[in-house]
Structure formats: C-alpha cells, structure tokens
C-alpha cells in the first residue's frame, strides 16, 4: 500500500523542483527547530561518549591486557547497523530520545576510545621519563604532559565522531526523533523535494562546519599540534 501511494506520488513529483524558496520562507521556524534539535542530539551524544570513553580508554591504556576486550566490544557495537541498534532498544525504551541517544553514543565509543588510547600511546618514552625526572606525579604527568601530547589524536577522534553522529542523527527520524532527518523523512513521505533537500544540505553544512570549528578549536587550545594532525 505504501509502495503504491509512493509510486503515484512519484509520478506527480516529476514536475517538483528541487528547492522551492517560498516553502523555505514559510517554514523558517520548523527548519530552525529541526536544526537545533539536530545540534542538541549530536552534542549530547559526543559529550556523553567522551565522558564514557575517557575513563574506559585510560584503563585500557594502563592495562594492555584488557585492550582486546574493550576494542572488541566497542567494535561490535560499531558494526551493528544503526537502524538495528535503535530497533533493539525500541521494545524496552520505546520511540524516545533515550533510545536515540543510547544508539548514537554507542557509535562514538569505538572512535573515541581508540583515538584516546593511540594518542596516549604516541607519547615518546623520553618525554615520560623527563616528566618523572622532574618530579611529576602520575596525575600531573597525565594531565600536564601526556594529555596535551595526545590531544591531536583525541581531537581527530572527536571530529570523526561528531561528523559521523551528525549523519546518524538523520536516521533517528525513523524512531520519531531526527532533527534534520525529520525534514528528509517528510520529503520522502510527502514526496516533496524541498524539505528533503533542505534537511540534507543543512546536515552536510553542520558536519562540515563542526569539523572546521573543531579543527580551529584544536589550533587555539593546542597550537603545538599544528601540522601534526593532518
């Protein structure tokens, strides 16, 4: 039934232009809300992802024996298709923000944990010894020496996690969330191109903007990483 109506609508859409500015003009509020929701879903996911990844990565870094299981588990989560991961949660949490966020956070873990561990690993042993020689205790060594040196790799992870999450948020439209994904889905269902073009374009802008913004932040807070994190 859905197939038939979609096909009929498709025939009607032959004349549908890709972008109707009058629609955009009348729906600025809707577009703004969708964009804000998209940003909030993304920031929450990457933020919570970092809060979970940091301790997990630290433990995995200090105890190489548990690295295998940690990478294995986060890797398995990463491989599960997004729609399936949301679907696994829906029977228990319903079509909710909770379902969307748990799914989105799960995808950031592999990227963040791996990049934090690799970043900390890349600190040269001489530097570590020098820090110890200067009387740094473990905590100061981590925060004052190792973290700054690992920052380029960590930020690379944050950038990839953010861009990936922005894309995945659109999928959550299928479970009733979605930010800009709502517009894309609306375009598909009503077979009206303008919302879907607006949704897709803004999602790409968000991804590119976030990537550039994070790259710039990295340069500002860690000027020593310039040129290293390519």
């Amino acid at each position, binding site marked *: 039934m859905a197939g038939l109506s979609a096909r009929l609508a498709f025939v009607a859409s032959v004349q549908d232009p890709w972008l109707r500015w009058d629609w955009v003009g009348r729906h600025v509020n809707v577009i703004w809300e969708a964009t804000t929701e998209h940003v909030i879903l993304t920031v929450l996911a990457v933020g919570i992802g970092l809060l979970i990844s940091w301790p997990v990565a630290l433990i995995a870094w200090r105890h190489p024996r548990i690295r295998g299981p940690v990478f294995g588990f986060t890797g398995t989560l990463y491989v599960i298709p997004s729609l399936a991961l949301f679907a696994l949660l829906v*029977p228990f949490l319903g079509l909710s923000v909770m379902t969307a966020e748990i799914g989105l956070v799960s995808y950031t873990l592999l990227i963040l944990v791996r990049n934090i561990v690799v970043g900390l690993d890349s600190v040269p042993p001489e530097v570590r010894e020098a820090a110890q020689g200067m009387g740094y205790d473990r905590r100061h060594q981590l925060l004052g020496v190792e973290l700054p040196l690992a920052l380029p790799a960590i930020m*690379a992870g944050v*950038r990839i996690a953010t*861009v990936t999450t922005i*894309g995945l948020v*659109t999928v959550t439209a299928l479970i009733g969330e979605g930010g800009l994904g709502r517009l894309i889905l609306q375009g598909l269902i009503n077979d009206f*191109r303008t919302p879907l073009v607006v949704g*897709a374009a803004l*999602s790409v802008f968000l991804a590119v903007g976030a990537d550039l913004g994070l790259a710039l932040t990295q340069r500002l807070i860690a000027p020593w990483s310039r040129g290293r994190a390519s």
Partner: protein
Amino acid sequence: VRFFGEVARWFLDPAHWEGTGGIPNRLLEHLAMSGSAVLAAAAIALPVAVVLGHYRKGGALAINVSNIGRAIPSFAILVIAVQLVGIGSRPAFIALLALAIPPILTNTYVGLSEIDPEMREAARGLGMNELEQLFKVEIPLAIPLIMAGVRTSAVQVVATATLAAQVAWGGLGRYIIDGFSQGDNVQIFAGAVVVSVLATLVERGLGLVQLLVTPAGVRHARRRTAKAQRSDIVVGT
C-alpha cells in the same frame, strides 16, 4: 523475559522461514544487494585509486572523497536517489554504490602512495617493468589497507541496505520498518537481531578474507612492526 520468549517463538514460527517475506529470502536479497554494490564499487574505485596511488597524483581528491562521503548522511543519499530514479531496488543500489566507493578509493590510494620509495627502487633494481612493479610489489604491499577499505565499505553497505526498507525495497530492514508501522515490538527486535548478526558475520568474514589474501611476507613484516599495526587503528582524517 516473556518478551524474549515471544521473540524465540517468532523465530521458530515456520511462516517466517518461507516465501518472499521469509528470513531466507530477505537475507538473500540483503546479501545480493550489498554484495553487488560493493563489487561494483570495487570495480570502479580500485583501478582509479591504483593508478592515482601509483603515480601519487590526486591525493587531495582521494582523501576529500572520503571526508565528503562521511559528511553526507547515508539516509539522505538514499532519499535523494529515490527522487532521481523512483522507489524500489534501483535507488537502493545507487545509494549503496555511492556509499561504498569512498572507503575503497581512499584506502587503496593511501595503501599505494605510502609505500616506501626504497621498495619501488628495489623493484626497479631487480629489473621489473612498471606493470610488474605494480602487480608484484605495490599491490601486494597495499593489500591489508585495500581490504580494510573493502571491509569498511561492506559494513556500511549492509547497514544502509537496512534503511532501504524505508524506500520500499525488501531486505532485512523490512522486519524493522514494518514492525515500526505495525507497532510490533517482537518483529522489530527479531529483525534487528538478524541484521546485527549478519553485519557482524560480514565484518568477521571479510577480516578472515583479509588475512587469507595478505601475502605471507607482508603479514610477517606487519607482525614485527607492532607500531605500524597500531597505527591502522586510528580511524580516519
């Protein structure tokens, strides 16, 4: 607990194992669609990337393709493909193909262009011509990265093929999408389990293939340089 019992009963129901809507047929659809998209992507991306990587030209292009690929949501690609060619299997194939190309292209390019120049010189010193150099030295050395690209691509394609149920194509996503519209949690969950198992098996299976096609010499060299192996792990940029 009762819920899991119902899921188990769903799987045991013979009606879910036969016909167009049965698991075997949906699985086959899903695999055939994903497989043909990845193969077609490899057929397009491999030659281009091998040539570019060999001459070390167009690096910025090869890297940007994957960055752009990551920025465009796969769901948007799918919906735009529907606008171009209508609903059904064609937009699914086009979208999956478009998604599958970037990882293969970028990894193959990086694999070839980052080969130690001394290796190339040694090959030339042995009297190899350019084609022999390419096929006997450069491609074998790049195999681990090339296969990693194919693997990434395949995992993404299997995932996005699930979404294609939303644009009136079959595949395993049907259970999830139909489950959503019918409010049938058991079907949603069961479908999600099948898709997850398939994706995991594809990833593991290709990992095995990667090991098998990596030349023994390259494998040993990699094991010795544990550092190099660790650097594979860094995702992207």
